[in-house]
């Protein structure tokens, strides 16, 4: 049965590591791109925290780098806004969308399905390089006249549609931002298409849908959501671009006076953009969080040595979250003056998301219950995910109610809410996935000790940042302002802002532990066997790191469900999916 591999690994450096069509190389490329984005996005947020805590601090070094952004050595409010815009855009698109879905999904999904590659490997390569181009286009705004845009990652018109007169960075910077997002949309569409096709068409023998690991279900659902949500953003981006470049009035109303000048446009509605944007934007947060849920389910089951509690309910909950995500976008717009009836409908639908979410949390806890828990670093990160998912989700139930939201809208309460549920929960999902699959990717373990140290500093640090931020929001501190010292009612809270900044600096610095752990372990980590965690799914059947065509000549055959831990009568406490069943019936 042994004959040469179906397609040999390419030899040249460029075909092998740069323009590779191997899903594993592309997965790592996405993860490295995300790592770069994370470092950049975190640095930007540290600069913002600096401005918020000490508004008059002179920073000669930064003033030297960005002379226009730091008149007199102190960061200008406009520069603060451009940092805010870049931080949001980079983190949401190029880290949180890119790494959990495109990064780990690319590496793991085909292997977990028993396929040799994605359905469309060349398209996969193009998606990555388009994403890369999107990031580079975005970063180019740092170095053009006027600087980066200042209208946030949501780019609300009229500010974002007016052009130069709306402020520095709203000229070319905003145009380039839209182009970058359009490129990212196309790249994400192609990735989503590839993921769905791979899941539907490339499963190996015996890998029925209900034998797929929950990670695959999560990626599949997230990709489906991405396929249907990103085109709407792309459409909106085209309209916004036309408003800016061709003089149309899709989002611009009549009679606006900006910077002392009457704007010639008429008839448009800025609210229209909010509808188009949030029709994409809300599913987008589920694109971000669903892979983390899958990874958490996978890891909690593995390290509790128990089958995941209620697999079928988990699958249904995953799909429900993806589906309901499409009909709740209005809850971002309660303050836009929508009718009370529409507000109530969106409110009730939003609260409904709590049901599948609660099912998931319940099932995670039930999986842990009575399990033989192995407290590995990746398990701790996964539990950190659950923690943030709950503490960030609870405030979501508050914000889903229009009467409360009208007060909280555009305060730090919302900032704290979405950083916990979407930002940090997803980031902990990334941490967990990295620690868990690192031995598979590089054949070496990451350091458990450093991982746990990083976990504890980060989780305590994150709570020290974001719990006080809720209080800031309840006191009425508005988002997107560069400083609060001008408001008497917020002056007393300045020490809290300083506390948050210090917590952020310490948490940010702790990420160096993770960076060190990654690069040190790649070279010097303990060597890992093929199945270091005694897990059950297909990626653990093949060597670490996997060969170019994953399974060699012989496709794996799947006989079992994905989480057969502690099966009574089995020789070990885990049973691989490829282990033939002994009875006649399945």
């Amino acid at each position, binding site marked *: 049965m042994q004959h040469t591999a179906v397609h040999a690994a390419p030899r040249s450096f460029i075909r092998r590591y740069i323009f590779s069509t191997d899903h594993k190389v592309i997965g790592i490329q996405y993860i490295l791109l995300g790592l770069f984005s994370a470092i950049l996005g975190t640095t930007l947020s540290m600069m913002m925290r600096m401005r918020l805590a000490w508004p008059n601090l002179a920073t000669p070094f930064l003033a030297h780098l960005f002379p226009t952004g730091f008149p007199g050595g102190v960061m200008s409010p406009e520069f603060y806004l451009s940092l805010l815009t870049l931080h949001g855009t980079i983190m949401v698109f190029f880290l949180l969308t890119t790494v959990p879905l495109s990064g780990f999904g690319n590496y793991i999904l085909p292997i977990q399905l*028993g396929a040799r590659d994605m359905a469309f490997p060349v398209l996969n390569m193009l998606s990555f390089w388009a994403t890369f181009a999107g990031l580079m286009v975005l970063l180019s705004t740092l170095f053009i006249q006027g600087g980066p845009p200042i209208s946030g990652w949501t780019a609300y018109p009229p500010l974002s549609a007016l052009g130069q007169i709306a402020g520095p960075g709203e000229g070319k910077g905003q145009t380039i931002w839209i182009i970058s997002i359009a490129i990212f949309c196309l790249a994400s569409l192609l990735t989503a298409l590839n993921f769905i096709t791979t899941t539907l068409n490339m499963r190996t023998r015996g890998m029925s849908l209900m034998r797929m690991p929950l990670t695959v279900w999560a990626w599949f659902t997230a990709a489906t959501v991405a396929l249907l949500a990103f085109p709407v953003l792309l459409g909106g981006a085209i309209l916004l671009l036309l408003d800016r470049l061709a003089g149309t009035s899709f989002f611009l109303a009549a009679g606006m006076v900006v910077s002392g000048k009457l704007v010639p446009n008429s008839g448009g509605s800025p609210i229209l953009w909010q509808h188009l944007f949030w029709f994409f934007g809300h599913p987008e947060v589920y694109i971000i969080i669903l892979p983390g849920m899958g990874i958490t389910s996978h890891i909690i089951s593995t390290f509790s040595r128990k089958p995941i509690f209620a697999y079928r309910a988990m699958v249904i909950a995953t799909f429900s979250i993806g589906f309901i995500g499409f009909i709740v976008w209005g809850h971002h717009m309660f303050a836009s003056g929508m009718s009370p009836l529409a507000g109530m409908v969106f409110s009730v639908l939003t609260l409904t998301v709590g049901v599948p979410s609660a099912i998931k949390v319940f099932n995670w806890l039930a999986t842990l219950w009575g399990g033989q828990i192995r407290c590995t670093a990746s398990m701790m990160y996964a539990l950190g995910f659950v923690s943030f998912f709950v503490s960030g989700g609870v405030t979501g139930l508050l914000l889903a109610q229009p009467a409360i939201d009208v007060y909280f809208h555009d305060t730090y309460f919302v900032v704290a809410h979405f950083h916990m549920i979407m930002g940090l929960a997803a980031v902990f999902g990334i941490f967990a996935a990295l620690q868990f699959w690192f031995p598979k990717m590089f054949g070496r373990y990451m350091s458990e000790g450093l991982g746990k140290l990083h976990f504890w500093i980060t989780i305590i640090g994150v709570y020290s940042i974001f719990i006080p931020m809720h209080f800031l929001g309840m006191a009425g501190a508005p988002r997107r302002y560069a400083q609060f010292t001008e408001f008497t009612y917020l002056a007393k809270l300045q020490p809290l802002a300083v506390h948050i900044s210090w917590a952020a600096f310490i948490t940010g610095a702790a990420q160096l532990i993770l960076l060190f752990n990654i690069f040190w372990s790649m070279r010097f980590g303990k060597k890992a066997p093929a199945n270091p965690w005694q897990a059950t799914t297909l990626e653990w059947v093949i060597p670490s790191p996997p060969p170019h065509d994953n399974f060699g000549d012989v496709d794996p055959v799947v006989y079992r469900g994905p989480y057969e831990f502690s099966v009574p009568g089995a020789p070990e406490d885990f049973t691989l999916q*490829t282990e033939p069943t002994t009875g006649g019936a399945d």
Partner: protein
Amino acid sequence: MASTIAAPPRIALPPQGNGGRPDPAPHSANRTGLILALASVSMMFIGLTSAYVVSQGLNPLWKQVHMRPLIWIDTAVLLFSSYTMERARRHISARWLIATLLLGIAFLAGQIGVFAQLAQEGLYLNTGRQASFYYLLTGLHGLHILAGIFALAWAGLRLRRSTLDLTAIYWHFMDALWLYLLAVIFV
């Protein structure tokens, strides 16, 4: 570890997937991919036409672009091209394929003709929002037709059943999309 992979199935398993066969992607994967791509194209047009309908509700003086003979002729050309496409697909015929391609080019020429008529009436991309939407929606549809023309040329070079099948799905879809756009704009 190899033993766990190589074991032949001892029990009858439901036929699932396609055995993880590697690239080139199997025929059915191409089909799945195309259908997904069309779903995504649909979402973009659903988003934009929703924006159209909402904007229409906001403006009392909305109607600018009126139905004209050239649009009817163009629609007939596109509908007829779906017929020729179907002939080409069923008979794997290069001649019918070339006819489809020429009809596609004729359709695009007609669209540009409509744009020219509108410009003569003083309706440009930035003169009022119905005109803006008309240019945008039909322009984006035209770009998709252009992509379809390239696909037809490619299918003509290969002239295989599987390629023709996929090209036909795409072409008929763009035909249906055109009828949908007409209904949104003029009904």
